[in-house]
């Protein structure tokens, strides 16, 4: 189901295509949709990157720490006995959302800048109230754990799409 407002320049199809490409190229993995219960609670970890300019919004990846560790291990081709430190895990998922955000930006016309990725954990990290309008949301299965990839926009966004 699309959460897309009719005038939004970004839709579920675009975001899913970007995620497919990032998963395949960066993680060496195929995207598997999540068929479990919809994860409604804020995830333990959120990696996010902002888009500002003619289009304003936020791309966010949310998951449990265990999924983040798995994503980082896949990205870094870590050995089975290699335990990645939390800063490397956070850096890796930050880069994943950075690449997703950059490719979402690539679908826009106009002058929009990509911010630097941030990885947030803890009780005050949910940004749903800051970026008001949900544009796209997909939930993926990472070896039995849900991973959400969401795009939000702000109301002052202009219409632009290549």
């Amino acid at each position, binding site marked *: 189901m699309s959460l897309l407002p009719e005038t939004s320049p970004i839709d579920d199809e675009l975001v899913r295509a970007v995620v497919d*490409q990032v998963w395949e190229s960066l993680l060496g993995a195929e995207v598997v949709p999540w068929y479990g219960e919809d994860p409604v609670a804020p995830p333990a970890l959120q990696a996010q990157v902002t888009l500002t300019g003619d289009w304003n919004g936020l791309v966010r990846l949310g998951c449990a720490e265990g999924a983040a560790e798995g994503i980082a291990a896949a990205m870094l081709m870590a050995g089975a006995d290699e335990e990645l430190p939390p800063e490397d895990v956070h850096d890796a998922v930050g880069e994943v959302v950075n690449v997703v955000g950059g490719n979402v930006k690539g679908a826009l016309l106009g002058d929009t800048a990509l911010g630097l990725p941030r990885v947030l954990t803890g009780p005050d990290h949910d940004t749903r109230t800051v970026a008001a309008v949900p544009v796209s949301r997909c939930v993926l299965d990472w070896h039995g754990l849900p991973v959400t990839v969401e795009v939000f926009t702000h109301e002052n966004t202009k219409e632009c799409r290549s």
Partner: protein
Amino acid sequence: MRALVVDDSRAMRRIVARILTGLGYEVAEAGDGQQALEVLASGAKPDLACIDWNMPVMDGLTFVVKVRENPQWRDITLMMVTTESEHSQIVRALAAGAHEYLIKPFTPDSLREKLDLLGLLPSEVAS
């Protein structure tokens, strides 16, 4: 051959460095453009620099401009490796002095193809 990988993401530096090392490169790393300039100023002479665009302290485009301003570094081949995929950004980078442009996400083969185009595949791995 020697390469300098400039990216604020340790993960991305590790990925690029692994590919380049596998091709026979000696690899140095820097976390932003300023650090990369310091590496060059210390006397490092890489044949290739792989440069992210969006980084704190000094972004990749500014780094490219600074390198091109210094005649001592004119032999370094500069390749942007970035999520900035718009045509206008590619034009900006090439106009500033970058030689090649690789958009993230990329595969090891696509990086290798870029190096082949640049004539920077070590002879023992060039096809």
